[in-house]
């Protein structure tokens, strides 16, 4: 086999290479953040007609062709990052050989890593790093924008390729970081969507102890003193959601704190809450079997009515009062025929107050507690309105109606005359 004509080919190459740059490629800037656009302009001093100019880019097989002057391309640099990425423009002339020029640009970026759906109060760390790694950055500017408060910080602690910012996150927002990488101003941001905490710690337990104070009740005079009540177990008043130190104030039921540092520094949030519904029913002892008489020497309410208005069914009447306060007849969870059942029913329908206060955030402690009070107040008012009224039970199996447990009609003691009223004029209308 003979050797190829090496010398001859070398001469041809020399002949086709211009002695000086007859074509020039310039970039609009020295670099760009990945995904940004750069303008590349190719020019030539050759007089030969140009068929086309082909732009090619290091690191990708992508090419662009321009056939008419000006030979310019606006390129979105959305592939791999690289320092000194080479772009080549090749002129295809009609009568002479192709000629090329190159331009080097920096395509850089910031890699921002963050948990985008953290639960509220989670301690998170946002991490920013140069891409490509290893670039020296003198200053990182961080910002976390929310509907309530914007926080920022600058990290100039060193000049490496990494920066972090973190702290407890309590509100959704946008985290962004800015830095200059090899003369290219870069910015990166992420939407942070904070998830509400849920679970047993945020549910509102509802409980009721029946007939809890054996000594409760006043003589059943004609003044319509109540036969029974449902109320808060600790305070003995008509509060539903507790702790409620004074009416409308649930601040002792929520534990709040301020974020000390980081993206949400300064914001107040709910750490935890201990709102509960802890009721008791009380039945007037003056109506019970063996209860005291309204006045010394008088017949007891139970004995008098058992022999008269509620003939031999007085025990059922007492049970009916208990059921009215609790879960109706027959007793059933969420019964619409008992005060406590209606509370259970309503709580489920309107939602638990703990879950409602969980997302609250404010710039001040007082503002947060006021928001918590407003939130709980609405829920309590809704439950209260649903359960307070006694008229709903008139037609149910507990009171009234054929076969009902308690007839309810009874007579009361008149302290002026020292005797019971003559008619069965009092009904199941006051609990």
């Amino acid at each position, binding site marked *: 086999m003979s050797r190829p004509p090496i010398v001859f080919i070398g001469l041809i190459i020399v002949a086709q290479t211009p002695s000086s740059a007859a074509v020039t490629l310039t970039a609009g800037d020295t670099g760009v953040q990945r995904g940004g656009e750069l303008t590349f302009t190719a020019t030539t001093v050759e007089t030969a007609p140009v068929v086309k100019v082909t732009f090619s880019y290091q690191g990708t097989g992508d090419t662009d062709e321009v056939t008419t002057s000006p030979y310019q391309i606006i390129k979105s640099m959305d592939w791999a990052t690289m320092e000194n990425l080479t772009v080549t423009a090749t002129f295809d002339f009609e009568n002479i050989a192709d000629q090329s020029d190159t331009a080097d640009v920096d395509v850089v970026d910031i890699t921002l890593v963050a948990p985008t759906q953290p639960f509220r109060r989670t301690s998170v760390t946002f991490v920013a790093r140069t891409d490509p790694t290893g670039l020296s950055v003198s200053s990182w500017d961080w910002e976390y924008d929310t509907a309530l408060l914007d926080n920022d910080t600058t990290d100039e602690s060193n000049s490496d390729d990494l920066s972090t910012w973190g702290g407890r996150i309590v509100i959704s927002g946008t985290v962004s970081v800015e830095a200059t990488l090899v003369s290219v101003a870069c910015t990166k941001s992420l939407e942070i969507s904070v998830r509400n905490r849920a679970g047993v710690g945020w549910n509102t*337990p509802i409980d009721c102890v029946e007939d809890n104070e054996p000594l*409760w009740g*006043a003589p059943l005079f004609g003044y*319509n003193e109540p036969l029974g009540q449902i109320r808060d177990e600790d305070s003995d008043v*008509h509060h539903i959601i507790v702790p409620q130190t004074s*009416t409308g104030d649930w601040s002792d039921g929520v534990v709040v704190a301020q974020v000390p540092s980081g993206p949400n520094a300064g914001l107040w949030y709910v750490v935890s809450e201990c709102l509960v519904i802890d009721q008791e029913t009380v039945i007037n002892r003056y109506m019970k079997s063996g209860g005291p008489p309204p006045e010394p020497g008088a017949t007891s309410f139970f004995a008098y009515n058992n022999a008269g208005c509620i003939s031999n069914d007085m025990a059922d009447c007492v049970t009916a009062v208990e059921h009215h306060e609790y879960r109706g007849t027959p007793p059933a969870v969420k019964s619409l025929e008992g005060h406590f059942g209606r509370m259970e029913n309503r709580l489920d329908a309107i939602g638990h107050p703990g879950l409602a206060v969980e997302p609250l955030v404010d710039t001040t402690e007082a503002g947060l507690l006021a928001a918590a009070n407003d939130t709980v107040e609405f829920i309590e*008012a809704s439950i209260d309105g*649903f359960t307070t009224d006694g008229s*709903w039970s008139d037609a149910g199996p507990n009171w009234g109606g054929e076969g009902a447990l308690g007839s309810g009609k009874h007579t009361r003691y008149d302290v002026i005359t020292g005797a019971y009223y003559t008619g069965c004029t009092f009904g199941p209308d*006051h609990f």
Partner: protein
Amino acid sequence: MTAILLSLMIVLAPASDAVDDLMVEAARFYDGAASYDGFEEDMAAARAARLALIDLARTCPDAEWVAMRDRLIAGLDSENRGVWLACCQALSRRAPDALGAALLAVLQDGNGVGREALAADALARIGRRLSRETRGVAATALAQCIEDLSRPCDRERMVTALGSMEDAATDHLLRIGAHATLCRLVRSALPHALASTGDARAMPLLLSLHEGAVSDGKRIASVLALGHLARQIDSDGQLVDQAVQSNRADFESHASPAVAAAAALALARTGHLSADTDGARVFQLADDPAARKNALRAVLESRMPLDSEQRQAIEGYVQDEGSSPAVRKIALALLAD
């Protein structure tokens, strides 16, 4: 679908006209409650209507507000509880004084016992929002209703409402407390009402009620009321000291752990519970299921730091099947902090 229809009502109708439509919706559940048929759908509709009505009242332009307010006040005459509730809630933020006056009229009317209870409860909830002048008028009217022994009256609820009139109620409550019969009729609600006044003059009566409490339930209520009143009156150190001493005596030596735990909570709320000197006693009380709830709440509200052994005990209360739901909830709050 209900929400869409309600939204259309609001968009298409003048604000004051939409009130009537929403009232009809708000009434549905309460109209049909006796039949128990389709109650879930009616309940959802009533709730949506009430929320829409509240929002409508909140956003109503000033030019239309007077007409809407008058319609809402007229709605308080309704026998339907859904309408009643909706009107109360819609009025409570923007026109508390007008609502207060309407509620007082219901109470003074004295005919419908059911509506009286609702009115007293509603008044208790808006008491703090009333102007000072209206609070004074309301306190006098409530006291007259309570003191009129010849009329049917839910006195305990009215006393709670009276307490919400804050310092305007003190004189009336002291008078009621000094009246043997009245005091006996309202003694369940009286401690809390006295504490709600925030008035130092209520302290002696409150201490006296506590001394005379005949059951643990009553003692717990008065212990907590003492703590609440003491927290508000920093002007009179001697009275605060009396309340704190009473609470401390109950905390340290009361035979009932439930009462002692309530005293611990009262002390926590006045800043007189120390982790160093009281921590062991509080956790000892928490071992008793009857006292656990308030003992743990005292730990929570005093922000007492927990050591590993105490955290372990609290984790045990979460797991303990004998713990009430409320105890578990408070224990979880402690572990979260």
